[in-house]
């Protein structure tokens, strides 16, 4: 049982506690730490790319290694950094925001994390086992299916395993939000962050299976001799592009919608105002999610789909600008008439608005299908998606971490260091990426290992590289802030920012059962309503009683480890069938653990009322 173990305080016990935990708050820590580490790796890869492109005709790294760098940078940042960091936020906040004691499936929550983790580890093992994948994060066939070595195999297996984890996480949060809201919290009283997670989870549910199928086809082609992408045997390489982008475009919204939620919370809190146009914001979120599935082919305007398809996808893509615009204006008018306090969280959010507006505008420019014949696969596109993914998602994650850090770790991040981290990152970001719009238009395709003298691209690239170093500096200061805060800062109160939603009604960090008594929700911004009526906290919706809690389990770790073993078997059985034994061992471990899980009753345990009264939350 997690509490008993935690009290022993040995290092081994600490590790064991995290390996077996099913507590959403600890799983949030796991996601944050591993996502953070992968973020640093992806950042390192980015720095190497920028150093290579510092001057014309540079030979800092070889062409082959460069392709491995860009592939791993993209794959790592999307799947192993951005996704888990967002999952960290979801886990840390959503159950608290809806007044729940845990997620719907605590066991699956843990399984989702470990699958993601081992998938990421497999992918990065490729660096030490003969070379990383080198076909780009989009892995277009047949470049990927014919790529020599095992690099792309690691890509396929790693993403398949971590993708399964993501899918499980998505379903888990859907059910949590549908079934486990506190009494009185109707859908239209849910905080906007919870709403965006709800829509994001739906997108995960419907988008990831397409990637799963794409990866299966690629896996079969590379490892078992099928011919989906072999044109000599009647295969068709465009199928991969469609499957990848049917997943890939919703994925963009999977990344950006949660941070829209974050900004909505931060703007409201630090302007001391209710979110402007709440229902329009909800509507816009749902609409963006829906349209997100209608636009995948705008990544394929130059594939040769014909003018009719290109026109349709151009118009649907432009349509997405409307709900996104609604959001921008609603945020501005949330601040309008408010009392704006420029904390670090607010600083990142305020910086997001012009940055994302630029990213959105270049998005509309890219939607102009014909003009995309010029933009496509150039640095213009690189600039665009870094404006939305760094300027949106990464800014949002930083804002969220500053905002919810006390709820996750019990201390408020140092404000001064927070601002010191912001400025170099913000300035560096614009230095790095603004100029890239022009580099693209001036004729520099993306994924270019080298550009040549006399192409007029040298100055822009140098500026871009200098900017990247500023961004790295910002990240280093942030890491320093994390350490500094842990050592020097005092413990935070339950509600350090005068918050509006339920998570601020309980201690920072919350007790492992979250709410001693489930709160009664009387409207949007539930805590704010109570505070504005002069009350100290939430009115309970139930008398104090026993609390049912799930048991911890090592099985999710074991299952994921089984798949990890089997993954190596799949990759290397191409060279020698002996490796198939690893497949059997790994799958045996997985199925065995599933069998144990299936036949062994797991009824959980109860915290007794008397203990709750006695301990007053200090169990």
């Amino acid at each position, binding site marked *: 049982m997690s509490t008993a173990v935690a009290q022993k305080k040995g290092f081994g016990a600490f590790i064991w506690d995290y390996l077996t935990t099913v507590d959403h708050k600890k799983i949030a820590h796991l996601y944050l730490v591993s996502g953070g580490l992968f973020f640093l790796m992806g950042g390192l890869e980015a720095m190497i790319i920028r150093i290579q492109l510092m001057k014309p005709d540079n030979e800092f790294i070889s062409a082959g290694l460069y392709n491995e760098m860009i592939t791993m940078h993209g794959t790592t940042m999307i799947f192993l950094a951005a996704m888990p960091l967002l999952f960290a936020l979801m886990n840390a906040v959503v159950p608290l925001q809806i007044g729940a004691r845990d997620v719907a499936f605590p066991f699956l929550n843990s399984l989702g994390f470990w699958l993601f983790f081992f998938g990421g580890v497999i992918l990065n093992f490729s660096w030490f086992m003969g070379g990383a994948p080198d076909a780009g994060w989009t892995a277009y066939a047949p470049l990927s299916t014919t790529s020599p070595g095992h690099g792309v195999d690691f890509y396929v297996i790693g993403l398949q395993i971590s993708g399964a984890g993501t899918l499980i996480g998505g379903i888990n949060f859907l059910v949590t939000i549908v079934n486990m809201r506190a009494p009185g919290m109707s859908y239209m009283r849910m905080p906007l962050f919870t709403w965006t997670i709800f829509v994001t989870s739906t997108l995960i549910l419907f988008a990831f299976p397409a990637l799963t*199928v794409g990866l299966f086809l690629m896996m079969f082609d590379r490892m078992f001799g099928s*011919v*989906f992408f072999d044109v000599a045997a009647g295969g068709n390489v465009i199928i991969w592009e469609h499957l990848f982008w049917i997943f890939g475009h919703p994925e963009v919204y999977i990344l950006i919608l949660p941070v829209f939620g974050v900004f909505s919370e931060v703007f409201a809190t630090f302007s001391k105002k209710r979110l402007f146009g709440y229902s329009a914001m909800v509507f816009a979120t749902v609409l963006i999610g829906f349209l997100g599935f209608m636009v995948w082919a705008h990544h394929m305007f130059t594939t040769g789909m014909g003018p009719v398809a290109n026109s349709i996808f151009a118009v649907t893509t432009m349509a997405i600008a409307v709900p996104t615009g609604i959001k921008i204006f609603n945020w501005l008018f949330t601040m309008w008439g408010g009392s704006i306090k420029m904390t670090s969280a607010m600083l990142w959010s305020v910086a997001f608005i012009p940055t994302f507006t630029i990213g959105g505008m270049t998005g509309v420019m890219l939607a102009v299908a014909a003009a995309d014949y010029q933009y496509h696969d150039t640095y213009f596109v690189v600039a665009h998606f870094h404006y939305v993914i760094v300027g949106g998602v990464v800014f949002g994650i930083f804002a969220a971490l500053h905002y919810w850090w006390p709820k996750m770790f019990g201390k408020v991040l140092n404000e001064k260091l927070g601002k010191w981290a912001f400025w170099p990152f913000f300035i560096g970001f614009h230095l790095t990426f603004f100029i890239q719009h022009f580099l693209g238009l001036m004729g520099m395709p993306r994924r270019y290992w080298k550009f040549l003298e006399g192409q007029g691209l040298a100055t822009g690239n140098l500026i871009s590289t200098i900017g990247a170093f500023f961004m790295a500096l910002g990240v280093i200061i942030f890491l320093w802030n994390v350490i500094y805060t842990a050592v020097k800062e005092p413990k935070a109160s339950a509600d350090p920012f005068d918050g509006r939603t339920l998570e601020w009604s309980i201690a920072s960090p919350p007790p492992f059962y979250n709410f001693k008594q489930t709160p009664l929700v009387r409207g949007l911004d539930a805590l704010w309503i109570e505070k504005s009526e002069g009350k100290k906290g939430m009115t309970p919706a139930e008398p104090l009683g026993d609390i049912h809690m799930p048991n911890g389990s090592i099985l999710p770790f074991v299952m994921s480890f089984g798949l990890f073993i089997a993954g190596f078997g799949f990759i290397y059985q191409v060279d020698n069938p002996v490796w198939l034994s690893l497949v059997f061992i790994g799958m045996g471990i997985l199925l065995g653990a599933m069998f144990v899980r299936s036949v062994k009753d797991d009824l959980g345990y109860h915290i007794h009322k008397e203990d709750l009264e006695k301990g007053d939350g200090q169990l």
Partner: protein
Amino acid sequence: MSNEDILNPKQMPREPEKATLEGKNKFIGFWFFLGGETVLFASLFGTFLALRNSTAGGPGTEELFGLELVFIMTMLLLTSSLTSVYAMYHMKNNDFGKMQVWLGVTVALGLAFLGGELYEFNHYIHEYEFTFRSSALGSSFYTLVGFHGGHVLFGLLWIVTLMVRNAKRGLNLYNAPKFYIASLYWHFIDVVWVFIFTVVYLMGKVG
């Protein structure tokens, strides 16, 4: 009240699968899961449709498919769906014995279906040299139908595990949702097969 008492009430509720929060979570979570599975199979169908004429000089669908066996297999699977409905009917009436019997029939029909599928694959491979590797049509056919077959196999193992595990203790609020979602899964597999029968076999035969 201990867990045991809560899960074994004196009077079973009308919908035992949704009587507990865990049960409700499983129920709705599984529906969501089936939504994801739908996209998975839709992607496989899309791939098959894109490659259905890519025979690479090998046999095409019209030449390969015979509808007799496939029709019998369709009937087997449709019937097994019906028998699983009976099983759930008896679950709601708290008649554990009859539920087990009908689940047993479901499993038997599922096994017969799988046998038919194996025979069919074997036939294509040996009579026509139509394999997973011989053409893009082959790759997409075996992947789509094979994924479905894998689902059937997994469903069978799942139902059998549930039947054996709970044989002695009978029905309660802890295992009722488990039986219920296993039967939901079985229906889903059945629906997918109806689409396979139509899109792969009928359209393949008619052209």
